[in-house]
C-alpha cells in the first residue's frame, strides 16, 4: 500500500479503463501472445497454419471493432501501468492509426492464407509464422502508440522480424539483399532514435499529444526545423523515398513471394505513417518550411520509381519499383500539407497497402503458373488462367490509377490538392508517373499474359488452390469495391486528415483535464 501521504491521483489514472479502451492495446497483445505460442510449438509445424490464421482473423476483427469505435466516438487513449500521461506510455489511436491498422490486418490475413501454400515446412520450422505475428505486433504497435519512443520500439520489433522473414531460406541472393536491407534500415532506425533523443532534450517529454501541445511554445528557441528535417530523413529512409530508397530494390525481390508481399504492402507504409504523424501533427510549421524539399523528393520518387518499373524484366523487381512510385505520391501529399492533400496521402496509403500486396501475390502466382519470374520467360497466362488474368488486369489498372479502381481516387485527391496550391509541376509528376506505370504494367500484361508461351512447355496440370484464389480474389475485390464506392473510405480519410491538422481531439483523449503542465 502506498503511504497515506501520497496523493495517488497526481500520478495515476485511477478510474479503471472502459472495456472499449482495451481495444487500443489488444491488437499488440494478441500478436505478441500468438507469436509466443507459435514459438513454443515451433517443432509442431502442422499446427502453425491454423494458429496463425486464427490469430490474424482475430486481429482483423479487433482492428475493425477499434475502427468502428473510433470513427463513432473519436480517438481513444489507454495508459500503460496507469501512469498519468505524459509520464508513462500512452497508447492513443485516432482514425488515421486505426485505419492503417485495420487495412494492415486485412492484408496480413490475406498474406497468411497465401503463405499456407507458399511457405513450405522448412520455412515454417525456421519461424515464418512467429515472425509474421511479431511483425504484425510491431506494425500494430507503431500505428496505435501515442508515444514517440514507443513508436521507435515498434519500429525495431518490425525491423528485426522483417529481417527474420527476409533471410528465411538463406539463399545467397537473399543474404546479399538482407545485408543491404539490414545495414541501411539500421541507419534509418538509428537516425530516428537520435532524433528522438534530441526531441527529448528539447521537449522533456515523449508523449506525442504533449509534444503537439508544446511545439508552438518552443518554436522560437529550439532547432525544430533541423530536428524535423532529421525526422523526415529517417522516415524517408524507412518509406524508401528517393534518394534513400536503395534498400528496397536491393532486397524485396529476394525472399519468398509472400514475404515480399507483406513488405511491399506494410513496411514502407509504416514509414509514411510515421512521417505523416510527426510532420503533419507534431511539427506542421516546420513541415511547411521544408515542403519544397519534400515536394522535390516526392516528384523524383514518383518518376524514378515509375522508370524503374519500366526498366525491369523480373516481375518482383518491377513491382518493387511500383511500390516506390506510390511512395512518391504519398510524399506529395505530405509536401503539400493541406488536409485535403494529407487525406489524399492517407487514401493512397490505404490503397497501396492492398494493391501492392496483391501485386506481389500476382507475381507469385504468375511464376507458379508460368515457371519464371522474368517477363521474357513468361507467357500464355491469359489463355491458361482467365480469372487470374482478370484479377491481375484489375490490379494493374488499380496500381496505375485508372478507373474504376482504387488507385483513381487518391490520384484525383492529390492532383486537385497540388493544383489548388499552384504546384503544377507536382501535378505533372503525378500524371507522368501514372503514365509510365501504366505503360510498364500494360507491358507486363502484353508479355506475360497475352503473348503465347515463348516455347511450348509441357502443359503441367496446375490445380486451382483456394489458398491462392481467396487472398488474391479478396484483395482484388477490395480494390474494386473501393474504386466503385469510395465515399466511406474517402470520408474516413478526410476526417483522419482533419484530425491530424487539428489534433485537439487527440490531445483531449490523452489529457481529458487539459494539457500537461
Amino acid at each position, binding site marked *: 500500500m502506498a503511504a497515506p501521504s501520497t496523493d495517488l491521483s497526481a500520478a495515476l489514472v485511477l478510474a479503471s479503463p472502459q472495456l472499449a479502451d482495451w481495444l487500443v492495446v489488444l491488437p499488440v497483445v494478441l500478436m*505478441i501472445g500468438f507469436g509466443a505460442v507459435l514459438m513454443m510449438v515451433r517443432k509442431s509445424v502442422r499446427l502453425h497454419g491454423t494458429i496463425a490464421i486464427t490469430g490474424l482473423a482475430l486481429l482483423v476483427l479487433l482492428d475493425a471493432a477499434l475502427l468502428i469505435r473510433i470513427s463513432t466516438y473519436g480517438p481513444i487513449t489507454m495508459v500503460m501501468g496507469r501512469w498519468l500521461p505524459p509520464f508513462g506510455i500512452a497508447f492513443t489511436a485516432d482514425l488515421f492509426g486505426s485505419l492503417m491498422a485495420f487495412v494492415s490486418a486485412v492484408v496480413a490475413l490475406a498474406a497468411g492464407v497465401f503463405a499456407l501454400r507458399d511457405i513450405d515446412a522448412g520455412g515454417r520450422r525456421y519461424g515464418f509464422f512467429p515472425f509474421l505475428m511479431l511483425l504484425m505486433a510491431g506494425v500494430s504497435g507503431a500505428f496505435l502508440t501515442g508515444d514517440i519512443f514507443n513508436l521507435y520500439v515498434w519500429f525495431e*520489433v518490425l525491423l528485426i522480424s522483417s529481417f527474420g522473414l527476409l533471410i528465411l531460406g538463406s539463399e545467397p541472393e537473399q543474404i546479399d539483399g538482407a545485408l543491404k536491407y539490414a545495414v541501411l534500415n539500421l541507419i534509418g532506425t538509428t537516425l530516428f532514435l537520435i532524433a528522438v533523443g534530441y526531441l527529448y532534450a528539447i521537449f522533456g517529454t515523449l508523449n506525442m499529444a504533449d509534444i503537439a501541445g508544446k511545439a508552438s511554445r518552443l518554436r522560437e528557441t529550439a532547432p525544430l526545423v*533541423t530536428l524535423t528535417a532529421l525526422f*523526415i530523413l529517417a522516415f524517408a529512409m524507412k518509406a524508401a523515398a528517393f534518394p534513400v530508397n536503395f534498400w528496397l530494390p536491393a532486397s524485396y525481390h529476394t525472399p519468398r513471394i509472400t514475404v515480399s508481399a507483406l513488405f511491399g504492402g506494410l513496411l514502407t507504409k509504416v514509414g509514411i505513417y510515421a512521417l505523416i504523424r510527426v510532420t503533419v501533427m507534431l511539427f506542421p510549421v516546420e513541415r511547411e518550411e*521544408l515542403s519544397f524539399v519534400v515536394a522535390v523528393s516526392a516528384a523524383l520518387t514518383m518518376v524514378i520509381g515509375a522508370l*524503374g518499373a519500366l526498366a525491369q524484366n523480373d516481375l518482383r523487381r518491377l513491382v518493387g*519499383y511500383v511500390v516506390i512510385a506510390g511512395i512518391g505520391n504519398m510524399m506529395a501529399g505530405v509536401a503539400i500539407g493541406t488536409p485535403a492533400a494529407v487525406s489524399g496521402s492517407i487514401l493512397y496509403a490505404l490503397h497501396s497497402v492492398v494493391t501492392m500486396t496483391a501485386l506481389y501475390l500476382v507475381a507469385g502466382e504468375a511464376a507458379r503458373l508460368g515457371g519464371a519470374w522474368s517477363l521474357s520467360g513468361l507467357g500464355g497466362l491469359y489463355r491458361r488462367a482467365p480469372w487470374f488474368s482478370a484479377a491481375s488486369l484489375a490490379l494493374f489498372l488499380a496500381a496505375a490509377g485508372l478507373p474504376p479502381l482504387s488507385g483513381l*481516387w487518391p490520384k484525383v485527391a492529390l492532383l486537385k490538392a497540388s493544383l489548388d496550391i499552384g504546384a503544377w509541376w507536382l501535378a505533372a509528376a503525378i500524371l507522368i508517373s501514372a503514365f*509510365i506505370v501504366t505503360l510498364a504494367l500494360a507491358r507486363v500484361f502484353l508479355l506475360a499474359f497475352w503473348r503465347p508461351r515463348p516455347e511450348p512447355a509441357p502443359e503441367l496440370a496446375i490445380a486451382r488452390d483456394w489458398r491462392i484464389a481467396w487472398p488474391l480474389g479478396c484483395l482484388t475485390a477490395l480494390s474494386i469495391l473501393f474504386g466503385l464506392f469510395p*465515399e466511406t473510405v474517402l470520408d474516413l480519410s478526410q476526417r483522419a486528415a482533419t484530425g491530424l491538422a487539428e489534433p485537439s481531439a487527440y490531445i483531449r483523449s490523452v489529457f481529458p483535464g487539459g494539457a500537461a503542465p
Partner: protein
Amino acid sequence: MAANAPALTFIVLFLPILAAVLAPGLTRFLGDRAAWVLALAPALAFLHFCTFLGEVAGGEVVTGGYAWVPSFNLSFSWFLDGLSLTFALLITGIGTLIVIYSGGYMKGHPDQGRFLAFILLFMGAMLGLVVSDSFLMLFVYWELTSITSFLLIGFDHEREAARRAALQALVVTGGGGLCLLAGLVFLWNITGVTQLSLLVHLENGLRESPFYLAALVLVLAGAFTKSAQFPFHFWLPNAMEAPTPVSAYLHSATMVKAGVYLLMRLNPVMGQTPAWEILLPFFGGITLISGTLLAVRQTDLKLMLAYTTMASLGLLVMLTGFGAPHAVEAAVLYLIAHSLFKGALFMVAGTVDHETGTRDLTKLAGLRAAMPITFGAALLAALSMGGLPLFFGFLAKEEIYTALAAGNPRAVFFTGLAVAGNALMFAIAFAVGLKPFLGPRIETPKHPHEGPAALWLGPVVLAALGLLAALFSGLAHRYVSSPMASAITDQKVTVDITSMPHLGLPLMLSIITMVLGALVYWRLDTARALMVRALENLGPGPDRGFDRLICGLVRLSVAVTRFVQPGRLEIYITATFILLALTLLVPPLVFGELPGVPAWPQNLLVQEAAFLLIALIGILAVVRATDRLTAIVSLGIQGFAVAVIFLLFGAPDLSFTQFMVETLSVVILALVMTRLRLSPRDHRPVGQMLFDAVVATACGLGFTLLLMKSVEAPFDNLLTDFFNAYSKTIAHGANVVNVIIVDFRGTDTLGEIAVVMITGLAVLALIRVRAGSRTGSGEGR
C-alpha cells in the same frame, strides 16, 4: 414522364454492362444465337432513349442522378440534351446492330462470349461517357472506353501486331485521358463547378482566366488523342487489328467521336476564343487532308476506311472550331451521316472479308451477283459518303460549304481543304462500296456467297437510314439535328436544309467535289502509286516515332535505374551519409538555428578532461590503425572512455550497460575477425579516404551543432521530477532507472525483449546457410 423515370434511366445505363456479365454464360448456353438475345439490351436502351426525343426537341433537358462521392462533390448524374441524346441513340442503335453482326461474324469462335462481353462493356462505358454530367464521372467513363478498347484491339492476342496496336491505343488514348483529367481538375479549380450542365451555362470567368489556355490545351490533348487528330492519329489505323465489328463500332461510329463530343460539349464555354478558332481548324484541317491522302494509298478495305474515318474526324474538329454560322450545324449533320455510312461500310468490308477470305481491293471484283444484298447496302452507304443528292451525306456537305464558303482568305483556305478532302473521300467511298462488286469475278481464297442475315442486317439498316433521314429531313432535323446544334451553341438553332438541291455556291462546290472525286476514282491506281512514292520520300511517320519513343523511354529508364541503383552497398551508405550531412547542416544555416558560441566549461574536472582525451585518442587510433584487429580494440578504448564519462556524471546503470556492450562487441568482433583476413585494412585510394573523412566530419559536426542548440534552453525536468517523486512511493523501487525500465516504461522493455527473442530466432535461421553455396549473384541485374 413517370415518377420512376430516373430509376429507369439509371438501370438503362447499366443494361449493357449487365448484358456483358451475362454474355459468356449465355453464349455457352445458346451458342451463336446468344447475340440476338444480348442485342435486346442495347435495343431496349435505344427505345428508352427514344422516349425522350419529344421532350428534348422541345428544348427541355432530361437530368437525374444519385449521390456517388459527396466528398468530391461528385454525383452519378446524367444530362440529356440534344447533343448527348443523339450520341446515346447512335451508341445504342448502332450498338444493337453491331451485337447482332458480331454474332454472325464471330460464329464458331471459341471466345465469342468473351468478345460479346467486351463489346457490351465498351458500350456501357461509351454510353456513360456521353450522358455524364459530372467531370469525374466523364473521366471515369472516358478511361473505361480506353481500357475496353485495349481489350478489344488486343482480342486476337496471339498475334504480335494486335498486341502492339492495343498497347499503342492504350498509351495514346490513356495518356490523353490523363491530360484530360488534369484539364478537368483545372476547370474545377477555375470555376469551382464540377458539373458540365452548370459549366456550360457559366456566364463569365473561364475565358478570361489566366489558366484558360492551360486548361484548353490539356482538354484538347485529351480530345485530340481520342479522336485521332494529327499527330496522334497513328493508333487508329493500327487499331484495325481488331475484329471488324470493333472497327465498325469503336473506331468509326462511337469511341473516336468521344473527342469530338467533348469539344462540342465545351464549345459554349470554351469556344469563340482566338485559341479555339485557331487550334481546332488547324489540327482538324491537317488531319482531314493527311487522312484522305493516306487512305488513297491503301489497298486494304478496312485501312482505307480507317484513314477516311480519321479524315472525317478532322473535318468534324475543323467545323466545330471554325466559328462561322452554320459550321456547327454542318458538323452535326456530318457526324450523323458519317456514323451511318461508315458503320455500314465497315460492316460491308467485314462481310466481304468473312465471305471471300480477303479484303485486299486489288484481289476483289465482281461480287455483285454472289452478294446482292451486301452490294445494295454498300452502294447506298457509298452514295451517302460521296455526298450525292437524296442522301444524308449530301445535306451535310451542302451545309459544310454553306458554312465555310466566304470571301476572306481563311475561309477560302479551309474551303479548299474541305473540297480536296471530300473529293478524295468520294473516291474512297466508291472504291470500297462499288469497286469490289463490279467487273468480272476474280478468284478469292473462299468461294463468295451472301452472308447470313446477321451479317447483312446491320449494313442494310444503316445504309437505308442514310437515305430515309434525308428524305424525311424535316423529321430528322426536328428531333435530332436542331436540338443537337442548339445544345452545342447553347442557343436555339433550327436546321432546315433539305435534300432538294438548290442553286448556289454550295451546290457548285459540291459538283466540283464530285467531279474531282470521280476523276480520282477513275485513276485510283495512278493516285495510289503517286501517294506511295510521295510517302516513301517523306520518311518515317509518327507510327515509327511511337516505337522509337517507347524504345527510348525504356532505354532511358534502364540507364536511370542503373545510375540510381548501382548495386554496391558502399555507394548506398555514402549517399545516405552525404544526405545526412546536408540534412544536419543546411537547415541550421537557412533557418537560423545555429547555436551560439558556447562558453568554456568553468568547472571541468581533471578526470573528466582526461577521459574525454582518451576517447579522442581511441578514435584517432581507429583511423590510424593499419589492421582490423587494432581498429576494433581502439574502438573499444573510445567506448570504455564514454562509459567512464557516464559514470562520472552519475549514471552508473547506463555506464555498466555500456561496459557490457563494449566488452561483448570487442570480443565478438575479434572472434569473427579470426575467421576473416585481418591484415590489409583498407584499400581505398587517398582521394576516396579524404572524401569519406569530409562526409564523416560533416555528419559529426552537424550532430554536434544540433545538440548544442538543443541544450541551449534549460531542460524541462517534468518527467525526471515525477520519476524521482513516485519511484519509491508508488512503484516501490529505490533505483529510479530500474523502475523506469520495468514500470514507468515497461512496455518499451516488453518490445525490446521481443526484439531480443526475434533476433535469436533470426540467427537460428541465418546460421543454416548452406555451406559452399555462396556463388554471390547478389543484386546484379
